[in-house]
Structures are given as C-alpha cells and as structure tokens.
C-alpha cells in the first residue's frame, strides 16, 4: 500500500535586498521580497521560511524588526499592496499581511538576528499561489550594508508516495 511521506526540498533563497534598508519610526516603509511562485514553481503543501537580518551601526536600543508574509489572491494582485517584486514598499495595509515574527533589537552595532522557521501554510491557512516576505524596522539607523549579512530562505515541503 503506497505511503505518502513529507519531503523537504532543498532550501531556496528569496530575492530581497535588505542591505542598507532604512529605518522607519512608524514601522510602515520597508522592503518586500520578490514573490515565490508556488503554483508553477514550488508546488508545495507548505513552505518553511526563515533567515537572518543584521542591524547597522549604533542602532537605538529596544526597537524591533518585523517580518511579515504577503500573499496573492488571484495570482496577480497581492495583499497589503505588495507588488511581488524585490522593492521598497509602504503597504497599503500592513494588517492585510500575516505577521511572522517581531524581533526585539538592542543597541549593539551590526548584530545579526536569525529568525524562523515559520510555516507559510499555518500563517495563511494555505500556501498562496504566490507569496513573499515583507521586512520593516525602526532601529533608528539603516540595516547593515553588506548583502551577505542578510538572507531569507524557504524550504518547500511536498509529499512523495512510496
């Protein structure tokens, strides 16, 4: 009798430029990742997403970095006014996205914060046909300028029959 077992595909990086991302006191203006095409590329029943973010020089103490997930309802438009591109974004309504994590930060310069993994399926109740990540912070200074000090990756989860 065939048995379906979950399989974790190889990790895949999301395309997002977090280096030098400006701080926003109001925690609104941030950066969205390019959208992940689950319908035509991943075909996953879940995606585990996580990553790392590095603060800049002399950040203000007791601030935060927020990690949100956005999704598409029709394979074209995205919740919260996201565009699906790796770009700066001021969401039309951040609460239309799904909060994944709020990272409390300190005044330590160039501090790397690793977060996740979080389930896109549990965040949305499904895996949207397209989805991405939105990052915003109010640490008082721009994030670290080195690209390799930031990353967001996903592990698509599928089932295989054996």
């Amino acid at each position: 009798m065939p048995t379906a077992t979950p399989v974790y595909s190889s990790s895949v990086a999301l395309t997002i430029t977090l280096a030098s991302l400006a701080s926003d006191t109001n925690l609104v203006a941030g950066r969205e990742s390019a959208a992940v095409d689950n319908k035509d590329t991943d075909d996953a029943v879940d995606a585990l997403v996580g990553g790392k973010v590095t603060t800049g020089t002399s950040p203000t103490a007791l601030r935060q970095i927020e990690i949100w997930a956005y999704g598409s309802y029709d394979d074209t438009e995205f919740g919260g006014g996201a565009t699906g591109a790796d770009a700066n974004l001021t969401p039309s309504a951040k609460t239309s996205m799904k909060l994944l994590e709020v990272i409390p930060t300190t005044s330590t310069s160039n501090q790397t914060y690793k977060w996740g993994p979080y389930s896109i399926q549990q965040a949305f109740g499904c895996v949207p046909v397209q989805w991405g990540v939105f990052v915003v912070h109010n640490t008082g200074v721009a994030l670290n300028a080195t690209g390799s000090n930031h990353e967001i990756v996903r592990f698509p989860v599928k089932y295989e029959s054996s």
Partner: protein
Amino acid sequence: MSANLVGASGNYLATTFGAAPLVPNYAVGYPMSFGMWIWLNAVGTVARTLWSFSDNNTAHYLSVRMTSAEVLQIVARAGGAESVATSTATLPARQWCYVIGRFISATNRILHVRTPTGLTSNQDTVSTTPSNLVWMSLGVLAASATATEPWDGKIAEYWLAIDDCFPGVTTTAVDALIMKMAYGGPFAFPTLGGDLIDYRSFRKGPGSFGSEDRAELGDWQKSMTWQCINTPSVHPSDHPPLPYWYAKPPKASRLIVT
C-alpha cells in the same frame, strides 16, 4: 476583534468577585499580575484608567492608569493614601502597545510598558496594603459605585494571574521576555498557566463576556463566579496583529467522537 472603549460614552467592562474573595489574600490584591495589548485613540489632556481593582469605594484600590500627559502609572491606594510609580515612556496614539502590571507585594509593584519604540519598567516600593478589594474593571476606575477616568481606545488579549508573572525579574526586564509575553501570550509560559484565573482575547467580540472565550478556555479554566457587566455596549474593533504561533489556552481534553 478587540474591545473598543469609547471614552466619551463612558463604557467599560467590569466584574465583581462578590462578597467573599475567591482565593485567600485576594482581597488585598497581592500577589497579582495582568497583561494586555492597548491602543490609545488620541492624545489629550485627560486622565484615563486601564485596569482597576477596588473596594467599590474611594479608599482602597489597585490600578494602572494614564495621566493627562499620556504616561502610565501603577497605583496602590489604601485608607485614602495613594502611592504611584510612573512610566518614563509617553504612550503614543493609534499604535498598539503592551502593558504588564505586577502587584507583587505591598512593597513591590512594577509596571512594564512596551511601545513600538521601547520598553520602560518602573517600580513602586512604598508599603501600601489595600483591603476589601472586590470590584475589578477594564477601562475605568470603578470606585465608590461610580466609574471615572474612562479609557478611550482598544484593549485585547487580557489575562490575569494570582501571582507574579515574572518571579525574580526586577525592573531590569529583558526586552525579549516582554516581547515573548506580548507576541507569544501568557500560555507561552508554562509556569504561569497554573496561576491564570482569567483570559479574554476579545478576538470574538466584547459582548458576551460570560461565554466569549469559554470555547477556547476549555478544561484549564479555574472555577469562578465572575459576573461581567458591559454598559453601555462596548463595540468590537480590529485585533492587534499577532503571529499564528501565539499560544491559545490548551485543552486538556478534546471531543473526538460523538
């Protein structure tokens, strides 16, 4: 949903424990702690109260209130004499903030206020022992059978414990601890679970407090005789954004077959 309290309407949420306290020493209010998400609609030169536990008179109460300068205070009043610790943070308007009030002992009361731009922790060590505390309220100072200082804004994810939620933690609170409570919830702290006697997410609405979270509370809930009063109607509003892993009340048993 959250509970939207409109200051101009003077609406609030209240309960009374009745003539006899539910647990020993409850009538003095120590030890006790609570937490909740709060939203202030607008700044203004008006004092407002978030939470109070009073003798239904003006002589004795514990409370957390906001001054006319938008700073929160943790208050203890006994025999007409009041002692206060004031937060060093100004509460912003139209942003969700998290508040924890810790009434640890007669000589130790700590207030934590986490806004999007920082955490403040302030302590009051003046010996103050109120008595005959029976009337608890959200969004107003309920004393002497009248309600004053109404909150104008929203509250959500309210919990109450009959012990200190962070034993041993001083005013040098670790931000990550406060944030875990705010974004993980009281049920993310297993050691706190046994001390929780009330939890109201306001996720389903503020109207029927007698049953609003009962389906969520399940078997963990303590046996209580709370009576909730909602006058005039408190309206539902948007809930603070929380991650999917925010811990909800555990169910000791789950019906699987009927």
